[in-house]
């Protein structure tokens, strides 16, 4: 049996009490962080509501003043924010995505004074695939890319076409524009960067390009698996096509409810 001297006992007790103090501090720190996060979450919830309410007021005032255009744009803006800010789920249905694109384009057309238009080509079997699961905000960054990059030099007549083609098990979505296109070398690098697991700038960091496409592609691959994703093809002066290939999974299917919308890979 080992005997403890008074000094050693003192030391042990000190160590023990210090540890208890540290643990307590950590516990409270965590609690404070938790509270702060909760507060932030509440604030985040308040902010959108404040925004939606303000937009509704503007819309109401516009309707009362018989300013149809402003009322419509405000409504579109409010719907767009409601969709993009809401944190309920990372997934949406194809129908939601198409609606949000329509809202987004309405806002952009108002902003750019109809320099470009959107054609959404829905298939005959639209009713049977409109409930297909798709990661939220898959189409919007691609359409935004077209607006930002494709039509920078053209004055008008820009057309963005979204075509949805369902097959037995899959859905192909093609977003094409008739903008300035991408030159061969950049396209090659862009497609190469899409294949990478981590984002590599196609023009070696000179300018951050393609990150939105990479992001969408990565999300599609993480959700549905490596066989799915997007592909970019383009010809200078003739426009760019982005083709998305995803499996058809109904939001009402057992697969989706069981996984809770996690991944299908």
């Amino acid at each position, binding site marked *: 049996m080992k005997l403890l001297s008074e000094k050693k006992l003192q030391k042990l007790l000190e160590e023990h009490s210090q540890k208890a103090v540290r643990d307590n501090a950590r516990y409270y720190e965590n609690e404070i962080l938790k509270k702060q996060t909760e507060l932030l979450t509440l604030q985040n919830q308040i902010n959108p509501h404040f925004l939606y309410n303000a937009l509704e007021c503007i819309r109401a005032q516009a309707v009362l003043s018989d300013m149809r255009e402003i009322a419509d744009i405000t409504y579109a803006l409010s719907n767009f924010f409601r969709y993009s800010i809401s944190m309920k789920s990372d997934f949406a249905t194809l129908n939601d995505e198409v609606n949000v694109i329509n809202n987004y384009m309405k806002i952009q057309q108002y902003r750019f004074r109809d320099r470009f238009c959107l054609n959404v080509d829905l298939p005959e079997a639209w009713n049977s695939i409109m409930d297909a699961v798709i990661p939220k905000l898959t189409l919007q960054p691609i359409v935004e890319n077209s607006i930002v990059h494709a039509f920078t030099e053209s004055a008008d007549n820009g057309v963005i076409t979204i075509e949805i*083609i369902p097959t037995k098990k899959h859905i192909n979505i093609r977003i094409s524009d008739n903008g300035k296109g991408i030159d061969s070398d950049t396209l090659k690098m862009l497609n190469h960067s899409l*294949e990478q697991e981590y984002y590599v700038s196609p023009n070696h960091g000179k300018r951050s390009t393609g990150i939105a496409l990479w992001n969408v592609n990565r999300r599609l691959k993480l959700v549905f698996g490596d066989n799915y994703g997007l592909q970019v093809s383009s010809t200078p002066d*003739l426009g760019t096509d982005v083709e998305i290939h995803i499996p058809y999974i109904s939001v009402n299917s057992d697969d989706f409810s069981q996984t809770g919308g996690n991944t299908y890979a």
Partner: protein
Amino acid sequence: MPEELYRIQDLCLRKDNTMLIDHLTMYQYKGEIIGLIGLHDSGKTLLSLILSGQELPDSGRFYYEESPVSCQVLASHVALVQRRSSLIPSLSVAENVFIIRRHKRSSFLMHRKLILHEAHNYMREMRLTIPPHVQVKHLTRSQQCLVEILKAYILGARLIILDDIPLTFFQDPQFSRMYQYLKEKKVSFLLTSCDIYQLQLFSDRIYFMDDHRIVKWIYNEKRNAIDISRLYSRPLSYTEPLSHDSPIVAMKADGLCYGSLKHISFELHEGGIVAIFDLFRNASSQLLDLLSHPRNLTAGSINVYEKPVKGESCASFVFAGFELEDCIFETLSTRDNICIGSYKKLAGPLGILRRARMQYVEQTFIKEYEEEGFNPRASCRNLPKKERLAMYLYRLELLRKKIIFCIYPEKYIDYDTLHLLKKSLQRIARRGNTVCIITCDFEKIYPLAERHLILSLDSIQEYAGKDEE
């Protein structure tokens, strides 16, 4: 709802450190006709070969009816119809269609009446007017093509690739009827061509290939007509360096008249590689005849380094045919096969061959083709195609003639040998010789040459496509 027939993703094929197919992705629906357009060396034919299982890719994912399959499984649903007929000319149409299925029959002997009857039924179903009992050699090429498509369909092909088939064939009403019939049966077609306007007549969608991958596809609709012409006229990227464009005229043909050829004038520059394309296949044989027998010239003149050529043949010319099966002697060694045309030069004063000289020639050959990994051989039996071509070209090089005419090299070369031929011709040209390729195949030969001349019976014109860039 369209049904997807196949999808290929990230298809890659690399040969000799060159990406021949570079991350290609494409798909086709059932009953859809896709036109695949691209200029020379864009990878169309190679893609057709991969789809039909004649070439194996390095990587890629394949799906058939939306399920992952191997390349071979996909290929089992694909039939390839090429410019050269694969039918046996001496057999009848019915025999050609059914002979391949003989192994499926329980009896060894074929029931002649039965296969004729069966062929007749198919013909009637597709409203074809080709008599099944006629020998294939008596059919026109477009009829042979129809028979090949019929055969592919009967053998169960779900995708029929028509690789570089003259699209004028399709103007035959029988073709459109057959197309319609097969489309209803959900058979898909992939048409490869470099003629956009013809593809526009027949395709539902058109894929554009450039730089060994798909750059864009469009629906073939009237509203696309302007875009298509813009895309087609766009100078596609060529990476061929313009080397040694020497101003020294090695050969000048001025106003040549011979047979049906009228007023043909052109120049070949020293150290240059020129391709003369006979796209209508009616003028090159006469031009060759004339070059090998300049004495027969009806009018005009041929000058080599400003000296007129009038004799039976010109000592500065060498004609390289590409019947390589006959040119390499299997029983001889590498050394002898290379030196066989230059024995006189390699022999001593008494006509005895100098072994050291021959050995030196052989060593230089091996060194020149170091990358290919050729080894000296005691006999040339079962020689790989590439090595056979290298030996033949080196043999010609040793002759040290000023102008080398390569006659229809497309007969022999494929993607494996194209690179080697290009390198060899460039080396020959670098040494101050002039290379003139006479060919009917625009697509395959285009990348080999620096200048391109288009020959017809009454003119020869420089092709300026490259300069537009």
